[in-house]
């Protein structure tokens, strides 16, 4: 009875199974973002992408940090891990490495991923672990009431700021490229269809994928508004010469340099779409499989370590694994001196 009450807060999956619809990936919880918030678009794109990819909720994990964006997993019917401010990436890293069979996504705010979490953001790039990072870029700290986030340009004064921003913005695309992400793109929260396609590509990509999603915050950001983006945004794919795909490792430096140069356009005109894709670099899991043959089949999460209440490791195993540390003690045999 009490538990009945509680159940309503949970997320019974939809009745009909089989082919999945976006709605099947939504929990019945009330979404407490401000009306008109760009996050709604991202949520829709996510569930659409999940549906089109046919992801299995129990084999999918959405990991988030803290912030308005951090609430996302609760609205999605798939595993959700709402972690600490800035730490979504290392939580996701542990999840993915312990069970590489899972599809793991990180959703986070711009403060979360590029402010307090910037160190982990860089580290994930270096590892090229198969995780998709989706950054809700609203240029503000939403949940703490509108302070400047690391993506707000210098001199800009949004509503909640008492004075114009005194820090510079970081360039998320360039930072991702410098860190080693092998899929780097920018999406726009209100172009749900385009974003959905980017998310699908990012999830399918084997390696660390990053999508910088421009997300209007209607409550605190009165500069980067829907009106602003409508004027400024243009699609990379509309340029027939734009080719972000690395076809062989040798192409990487030049494509990356072009992507970085492109990423510096931020002003009147802002490009979005795919900046860079390098499918030639091995993912971290692949590297690990090389080092630990059998890892992908028997990752940490799937190994049996107990048998009838006992360790599966026996004394004989110890002798073989740690033999180097074993000394034969034989005072009698050889005696002293």
């Amino acid at each position, binding site marked *: 009875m009490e538990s009945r009450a509680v159940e309503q807060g949970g997320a019974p999956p939809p009745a009909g199974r089989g082919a999945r619809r976006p709605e099947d990936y939504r929990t019945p919880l009330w979404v407490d973002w401000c009306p008109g918030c760009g996050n709604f678009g991202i949520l829709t794109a996510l569930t659409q992408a999940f549906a089109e990819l046919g992801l299995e909720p129990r084999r999918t994990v959405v990991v988030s940090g803290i912030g308005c964006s951090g609430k996302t997993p609760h609205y999605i019917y798939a595993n959700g891990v709402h972690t600490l401010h800035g730490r979504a990436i290392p939580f996701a890293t542990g999840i993915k490495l312990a069970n590489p069979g899972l599809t793991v996504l990180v959703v986070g705010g711009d403060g979360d991923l590029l402010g307090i979490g910037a160190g982990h953001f860089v580290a994930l790039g270096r590892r090229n672990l198969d995780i998709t990072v989706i950054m809700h870029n609203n240029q503000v700290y939403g949940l703490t009431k509108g302070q400047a986030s690391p993506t707000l340009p210098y001199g800009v004064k949004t509503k909640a700021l008492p004075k114009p921003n005194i820090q510079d913005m970081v360039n998320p695309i360039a930072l991702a490229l410098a860190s080693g992400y092998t899929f780097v793109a920018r999406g726009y929260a209100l172009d749900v269809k385009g974003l959905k396609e980017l998310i699908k590509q990012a999830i399918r990509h084997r390696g660390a994928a990053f999508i910088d999603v421009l997300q209007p915050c209607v409550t605190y950001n009165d500069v980067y508004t829907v009106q602003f983006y409508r004027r400024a945004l243009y699609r990379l794919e509309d340029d027939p010469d734009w080719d972000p795909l690395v076809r062989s490792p040798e192409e990487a430096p030049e494509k990356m340099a072009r992507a970085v140069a492109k990423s510096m356009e931020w002003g009147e005109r802002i490009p979005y779409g795919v900046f860079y894709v390098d499918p030639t670099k091995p993912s971290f899991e692949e590297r690990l499989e090389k080092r630990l043959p059998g890892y992908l089949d028997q990752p940490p999460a799937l190994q049996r370590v107990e048998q009838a209440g006992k360790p599966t490791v026996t004394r004989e195993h110890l002798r073989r694994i740690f033999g180097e540390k074993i000394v034969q003690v034989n*005072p009698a045999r050889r005696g002293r001196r």
Partner: protein
Amino acid sequence: MVLSEAYLVIGGPQGSGLETSAQVLTVAFASRGYGVVANREYHSNIMGRHSYVVFTVNSRRLVGHLSAPFHVAAFMDAESVFTHFEEVSKGSIFVYDRDVEATPLEKVVSMEPARRARVERRLRELGVEPTVGGVVEHLRSRGVRVAGLSFRGILERLQSRYQVPRGRLRRFTSAIVAGAVAGALGLDAAALEEGFRYRFRRREHLVEPNVYTAMLAAEEVRGQAGSIDLEPGSLELGEALVVTGNEAVAIGKVIAGVRFQSYYPITPAQDESFYLEEHELLDAGGERLGSVVVLQTEDELAAIAAAIGAALTGARAATATSGPGYDLMVEGLSWAGISEVPVVVTLYQRGGPSTGMPTRGSQEDLLASLFAGHGEFPRIVLSSGDHEEALRDAVTAANLAEKYQLPVIHLLDKFLANTVKMIELPDPAGMRVERGVWEEEPGPDYRRFRLDAPTHPISPRAPLGGAVMWYTGVEHDEYGHVSEDPEMRMKMMEKRMEKLSLADREIPERGERAVLYPGGEKPSSIEMLILGWGSVKPVVLEAVERLRREGVAAAYLHLRYFQPFPARYVYALVKGVKEHGGKVVAVEHSYRAQASMVVEMNTGLIVPYKVVKYTGRPIYLHELLEALREIHAGKTGRVVLRFGE
């Protein structure tokens, strides 16, 4: 007189092979049926600063304590001579390099100014010329049996025999020192050979010239100083493990089924992870036992986050760190607390605060292990007193974490971590792996934080990948969705905190959470009850033994769990001892005697006597005995120990 126990010290600059000498000697003694333990002291430095290793060798039993004065001292360089010359006594054998005899104290540039000033003052007081030769003379005049070897000469003989390239000759200094000790204690070439084989497992060609060099030194020492009569080793173990505390824990984790370990390098925790990584394949000679993922993260914030993430998938996961890294983990710890994640943090204490004395030992982090991490959440804190305990507790920690679904902090320290000890080969068949309560077939309505489970306050777990669930560091409902409802809050808070009460009911106090030595002792018959924890165990046990032989009815209460604290048992014991006029003494490696504070907090009983040490060096038997005797005699209430350079 034939000794059954000997104390040794060897010294030399960091990076000069002292560790090799130590390993070789440890194995050599072990293989000959001696119980042996070796503690290494070193600076936070890669090359050049003074380092030394202290051993205890016992012919009849396994040992863990250290003591001085040393029966044998063997040194590679002038700094060691200046640093340790007062740690030997009449009849001790003192080996040094004759080639540095002329070296004056002021030329020992690597010596810290504070120490140099002290040594200078001391030599002046003693009227000793401040050169190696002067010190040696002084020792000789005090009846120390001095042996001056020409290291250069020995290496030249090695060179002419084995054509070792000149540039590599220095690497054999370690053999000279090992040989010198072997000579002084009558260890044979075959035993040394065992030692070198252990050390140079995959470079066997190095064994012979090393043994050759060592035996040259051994003969020279015996020639100059004779040898000390040590009883033949008589331990009949068949086989033994010779491991550091770091390695013991790593082996324990493998047995426990820990298959994911994240870490960020930090002294003295890191060697555990390196050792795990070396054996990551769990290669049991062809048989596939799986593998361990050992992940070096970008920092400790990430290390605990990754371990938690792994634990959520159902893997047994752990991380290992030391003070500064632990500080960075406590926000994650708090998340693990509210999210009921079974994760083990192996915490190796070192000298603090801050970077402190990174390569020295301490027990300064007990209070931080209990109380760091904001908000209220349950955790278990247990600590190990020796290598055997460390290995078993690594298994226990993993079990408790999963049984109660909470973070477990396994406390160790640098003394244990770096000390090499001979122990029996453990048998996993005698251990349990308890994985706690799982939801067999989680349905679509699975509630990770179910409040009405028959196992309440434990909710049956399911791994990510096996059901759909939510986790959040925010207060939540049964599904793991955010909730700020006051009633839900109370239920969840109570559920979590009750797990600690459950653990308090289920884990035996006596014998597990606190262990009394000698076992059956009644409070009324204890004259002096020593409270201690962690790596003071071996030395306190030895001191108790000796005191009892002296007629003092001493006993040792070894505190193992600090949460849930064995409050009833400790209360009864301490109260009983006090009521019968016995003295209660804390022996700890911290300024405040932190465990005694925890005792006071949990029992309301004051621990009136304290023996503490905070120089970062281990407690030696001789100084401890002296302190306890003084306390027993009513001369003092607090003794601060200070032996060891």
